[in-house]
Structures are given as structure tokens and as C-alpha cells.
């Protein structure tokens, strides 16, 4: 039996990607719940309050975790979408070139997002 590999999937291992997808989903959910409740609890929120909150070390940790989680989650998810729909089966022989191009583009944009967002949330 030929071994199925993929060099552009996040961890190159199905089990690891599957677990990471779930763990990152939980972290993103925790962030969304916290921020939603915070907004509801602070109807007159101003810039200084928001800045102070994000300047707290614990909030920085949550922000960094969330930013990294979004990067990993979207890498795994978009890799799945691209390997479903941008395939030779659906688009013909050009699909391999297109898929590699889209995958490299997706990975590059994700890494740019990651560095940019980390710089913002850790620099507060």
C-alpha cells in the first residue's frame, strides 16, 4: 500500500491536524465568549479601558494564544478546502499548479498575519 503524504498540511499527520483543529477551536471559542461578555458588561467601553485590558499580562497570553490558534486553525481548514476542490479530478491537469500556488499563498498570508498580529497584541 502506498503511503499517503502531504507536505503542505500543517503537521503532515492527520491525527495531529485533527487534534490541533479541535484544541484551537476551543481556544478561539473561549476568546470569543470572554470578549462578548466583556463588551456586554461594559456598555460604555472607551479606548483607555480597552487598552488597559489588553495590556494585562493574562490578556496578552489569551490574545497570543488566540492569534496562534486562528493561524493554525485556518491553515488546517483552508488546506482541507484546497485539497477538496482544487484537484485534477475537478479542474483538470492545471489543478496541481494552482493548488500549490494557492497553498503557498495561503501559508504566506497566514504567516504574515501571525507576525503582524503578534507584534500588535504583544506590543501593547
Amino acid at each position, binding site marked *: *500500500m502506498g*503511503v*499517503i*503524504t*502531504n507536505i503542505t*498540511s500543517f503537521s*503532515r*499527520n*492527520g*491525527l*495531529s*491536524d*485533527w*487534534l490541533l483543529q479541535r484544541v484551537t477551536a476551543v481556544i478561539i471559542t473561549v476568546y470569543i465568549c470572554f470578549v462578548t461578555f466583556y463588551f456586554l458588561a461594559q456598555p460604555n467601553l472607551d479606548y483607555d479601558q480597552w487598552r488597559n485590558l489588553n495590556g494585562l499580562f493574562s490578556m496578552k497570553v489569551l490574545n497570543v494564544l488566540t492569534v496562534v490558534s486562528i493561524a493554525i486553525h485556518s491553515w488546517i481548514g483552508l488546506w*482541507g478546502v484546497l*485539497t*477538496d*476542490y482544487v*484537484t485534477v*479530478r*475537478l479542474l483538470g491537469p492545471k489543478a496541481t499548479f494552482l493548488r500549490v500556488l494557492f497553498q503557498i499563498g495561503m501559508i504566506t498570508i497566514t504567516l504574515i498575519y501571525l507576525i503582524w498580529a503578534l507584534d500588535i497584541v504583544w506590543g501593547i
Partner: protein
Amino acid sequence: MLKVSIYRYNPEVDEAPYMQDYDFDTQGEDLMVLDVLGMLKAKDSSISYRRSCREGVCGSDGMNINGKNGLACITPLSECLKGNKLVIRPLPGLPVIRDLVIDMSQFYAQYEKIQPYLVNNQPAPGIERLQSQEDRAKLDGLYECILCACCSTSCPSFWWNPEKFIGPAGLLQAYRFLADTRDTDTENRLANLEDPFSVFRCHGIQNCVAVCPKGLNPTRAIGHIRNMLLRGAT
């Protein structure tokens, strides 16, 4: 009067597939879809489909009946009709050989990959390898699969990656041998499944569970495989 619309395609004659309509008088009876096809074929012998046991055991007559995969021989009209229209198409996702007959090579190739037989490296006992009743019970809900392909051809992940994703039917059988206490090849079987495609293309949408004519649950079996992989790798 029942309106029956059947997918027709004979690659030797037709440039493209088309739907052919027939009027059919059920005479008030709740027939099985296979009976309807049989009576239509008596009038138009060019209609092609597979059938054999006509009682849901052989798995030959899997087809898409009013939008849902099923076995024509055990699907009564009362269960599948929408108004008085019956639309019959081949199982989706696999190449059509003619009319309702599909080429199942890819489906069988995935089945072959999971090594659907007992592997045991212990010396063979004098008579047979015995199992406790509890161990035997673990195979219930797994061994009953008749490989009709209704599940795998209802699965979008199998449509998009039929050469890489094993598909629900193959994975149900993969777990059937992983769960068998007489099999000693568990480690090797699991190692062959942990890539990003073979098992992990399953996103749990459970189309397979919804269509299985034998009432089996491939999604649950896939969950068990994931748990076994997780147990071994963490």
C-alpha cells in the same frame, strides 16, 4: 399514474447522459423500486441496472432514489416517493458504465487497502481461534456490511478524494478488523491510517449513517478508529 424518471447513458450511442421519463401504473400496490424497474425493463429492455438477490443481502442494486442512496429491492415506493414522481439515478461520484450501472473499482480499491481479512502471527491452533461471547459482540454492527457502496457514494469527502480517502464503507471494515481480538496486526493497521486523508477526511456529516440500508453506523466506527489512533500516539 406514477411518473418515473430514469438516468440513461449508453456511452456507445449517447453523447451525454439524459433523463428518460416513463408512466407507470402501480395498480394501487406499494411496490419496491426494483419491482418498478423490472416491469419497466420488461417494456424497454435497454434499461440497465445491477440486481441479484432482490432482498437486501447482495448489495447489487444500490442506486440514488429520489435523491437518497438506497437498495432498490428493499425501498418501497411509500418510503421514497415525493408526490407521484420517482427519480432514479446511479450512485453518485463513481464513473457510469451504462444507465444505473457504475464502475466500482475505486470503491473496491479502498476496501482492499484496509486489508479486509484476519491477520494473525500466532501459530494456528488445532481447530479454530476461539472468542469469548463479549469479544464476538464487539463485531456486531460492523460485520453486517454488504459493500453496496450507498454510504461511500453519499460522502462528499469520498467524491472529492476517492483515491485517498478510504470512505465510510472501507473504514467500517477497517474497524471491524481492528476490533477483532483474533487479529494481531492492530499496530500496522493503525499506522496505515494516520495520514491526513485515509481517515481524517471524514468531517462527521453522517450522510453514511443516514443512507445505510443495513442501519449501520460508519461515523461511530470512524470515531473508534480515531480514539485508537489517539490512544497510541499521545
